[in-house]
């Protein structure tokens, strides 16, 4: 009788969760792990154990280990909950769950919903969890996340590392270079402005070269100007090279 009641309660809870929005379904879990999977964007693959590769036009290797078979998605996210609070986020690409009894598996969710939710979550997280939330969002086959990334980059209460990671992924996205450049004036901390010069240098476009030259010429901080020049030099664009050579002769 008690078992039947427990099963009925469980079924009711599942039905209730299924009818809610993604944040509602996650927030409804008081303690334990919430698992979800969603489609990865084309070009993203992983080894299921934490190694992730991104074979886009701006390829980056995110694995610290040696190359293993790369599985094209899905993105798997585990959210740790304690006392109705999210306390941890972990993410993998590829592989499958070995879920414990107390896990709540939401199954496959819409990539855009997951990405927007995770980027919202990143505002209040830090360390590995924040990294995982931002990276998982970036790997999702989602719609335009630029506004979410920009909000996170500009959020003075979020951790610097999280904001840097958001800036990195904004740079790797399809967002126009002009949007990145407009961001410059709102980047207050040194670490963020320094990182901005690197992110910009990964865009091999004339506009990015011009923007970096502008930083070298006008940024009030000499260290930022030096970093901008370093990344200009790494771009190997003829215009950047000429600018550096001109500095030496004037």
């Amino acid at each position, binding site marked *: 009788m008690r078992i039947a009641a427990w099963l009925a309660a469980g079924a009711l809870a599942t039905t209730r969760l299924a009818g809610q929005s993604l944040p509602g379904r996650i927030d409804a879990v008081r303690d334990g792990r919430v698992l979800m999977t969603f489609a990865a964007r084309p070009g993203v693959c992983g080894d299921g154990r934490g190694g992730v590769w991104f074979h886009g036009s701006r390829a980056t290797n995110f694995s610290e280990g040696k190359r293993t078979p790369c599985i094209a998605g899905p993105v798997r996210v585990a959210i740790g909950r304690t006392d109705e609070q999210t306390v941890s986020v972990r993410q993998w690409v590829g592989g499958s769950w070995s879920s414990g009894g107390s896990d709540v598996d939401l199954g496959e969710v819409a990539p855009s919903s997951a990405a927007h939710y995770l980027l919202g979550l990143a505002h209040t997280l830090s360390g590995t969890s924040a990294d995982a939330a931002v990276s998982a969002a970036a790997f999702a086959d989602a719609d335009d996340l630029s506004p979410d990334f920009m909000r996170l980059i500009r959020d003075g209460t979020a951790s610097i590392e999280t904001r840097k990671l958001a800036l990195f992924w904004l740079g790797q996205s399809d967002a126009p270079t002009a949007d990145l450049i407009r961001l410059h004036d709102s980047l207050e901390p040194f670490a963020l402005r320094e990182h901005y010069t690197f992110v910009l240098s990964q865009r091999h476009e004339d506009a990015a070269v011009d923007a970096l030259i502008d930083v070298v010429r006008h940024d009030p901080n*000499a260290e930022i100007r*030096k970093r901008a020049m*370093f990344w200009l*030099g*790494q771009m190997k664009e003829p215009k950047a090279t000429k600018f*550096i050579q001109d500095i*030496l002769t004037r």
Partner: protein
Amino acid sequence: MHRTVRSLSLLATLLLACAPAMRAQSLGKRVTASDGLVQVVFPSRPTVCGDGRSFIANVLGRSNYYSGNGSYSSRDGWSDRPCVNGPARVVATVIGHDVTRLSTYVGPVPAAQADMRTVTTAAAEASTWLGDLVARAGGRVASDAMLPLVLADAAAPWPLLLRVARDDNRPRDVRRSALTWLANGVNDHLGIADSRDESDDDEMRTQAVFVLSQRPKTESVPELIEIARSAKHPAARRSAIFWLGQTGDLRAADVFAELLRQ
């Protein structure tokens, strides 16, 4: 009789010509005669000074070296200790009749430890011995012998270091060390060893040179050579010469030889 005189004078000429090598052999033999620690004391160039146990100042221009053997405390910081002009002192560790380690000091000579032999010698003799180590010894000893070679109040070491930098038979790290010392020597020779960034523009020029140096060698070496030869701003030229020395590229030795002749 005439023939005897001619033979004697030929012998004397030969002996004179071979004298430095014989002196080196003689000092080298004395150093490696028995295993243990040997300190070789010799006159250093007049401008060089040190505290005798950790730091050496004014090596080339105002560049300083820290041997790291002295204990540092904020109360007795090495920079506050008196900088005494010479002598130079090289402590050699000898194992199996080979020099296996060298440590270099300038300034007051501390009382020798009971287990340490002391050899006091002329700068030229020390220079020949050290030059021999640079040219023939294993990697670390050869590289470590370059500092005291530069310090010795003897003939300039640059011709020898140029030979080593160009010698395919010497280990790569020794050739790189030779290039690094040559770069310092060239900057000193050109009177720009102490050129510092005196303005924002200077700072950016120095950074521009660094940025160019970090590009692939096919691009960076020709750029650095051009700047080393003809940059009008001393800080940029000094930086280019330094980074050229760090490339390990053989072309650097040719440019250094050319600049040392200026």
